């Protein structure tokens, strides 16, 4: 069955540094992969979508890569700020009738 793994440990980084979050998936080949941000007590908010034929996608301080050979996506936040502290979810697309989300990585940016 399909499996999605994100950084199992919470990630703490110093303000101004680059945060890198990992999303690994197994047993299927998504054509798209989405990243969401979730703040405590709120629903997830869409950030970026990357297609299998796109190696990299950027939006302001965010960068996502998609390596279909490694079955991995990396999510980078450059020049991180305390306001970037949240849980980040990856969601590789599934062509079946299911839509799978990872368990999320909790990021804390320390001032």
């Amino acid at each position, binding site marked *: 069955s399909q499996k999605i793994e994100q950084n199992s440990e919470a990630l703490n980084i110093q303000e101004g540094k680059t945060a890198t979050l990992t999303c690994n998936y197994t047993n299927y080949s998504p054509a798209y992969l*989405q990243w969401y941000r979730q703040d405590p*007590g*709120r*629903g997830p*908010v869409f950030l970026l979508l990357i297609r299998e034929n796109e190696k990299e996608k950027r939006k302001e301080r965010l960068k996502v890569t998609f390596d279909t050979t490694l079955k991995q996506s990396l999510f980078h936040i450059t020049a991180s700020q305390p306001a970037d502290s949240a849980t980040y*979810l990856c969601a590789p*697309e599934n062509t079946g009738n*299911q839509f799978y989300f*990872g*368990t999320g990585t909790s990021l804390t940016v320390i001032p």
Partner: protein
Amino acid sequence: NAGVTQTPKFRILKIGQSMTLQCTQDMNHNYMYWYRQDPGMGLKLIYYSVGAGITDKGEVPNGYNVSRSTTEDFPLRLELAAPSQTSVYFCASSHRDRSNQPQHFGDGTRLSIL
């Protein structure tokens, strides 16, 4: 700019009671979804709908029912509440094909079954 609205925000139920979680969206999205999120776990899809009158089971449908009589509304029904259904429930919607369109989420209903 309402987006996806869920009610109630919080609810405590007794075992065996029933209730309906309400979800409405004002973006004219044809796809709608119900997820549950347990601590430390990812979002699990309960049911989804690709349009009015059409619903289908997701990964964890047991103990739940849905209906989709209009484009805007997608209520989730718990018939006989069980402690295992204690969770945070999220409703989401998206436009057209779900695979390459972002999902828009409500802020959730926090449900405790005691």
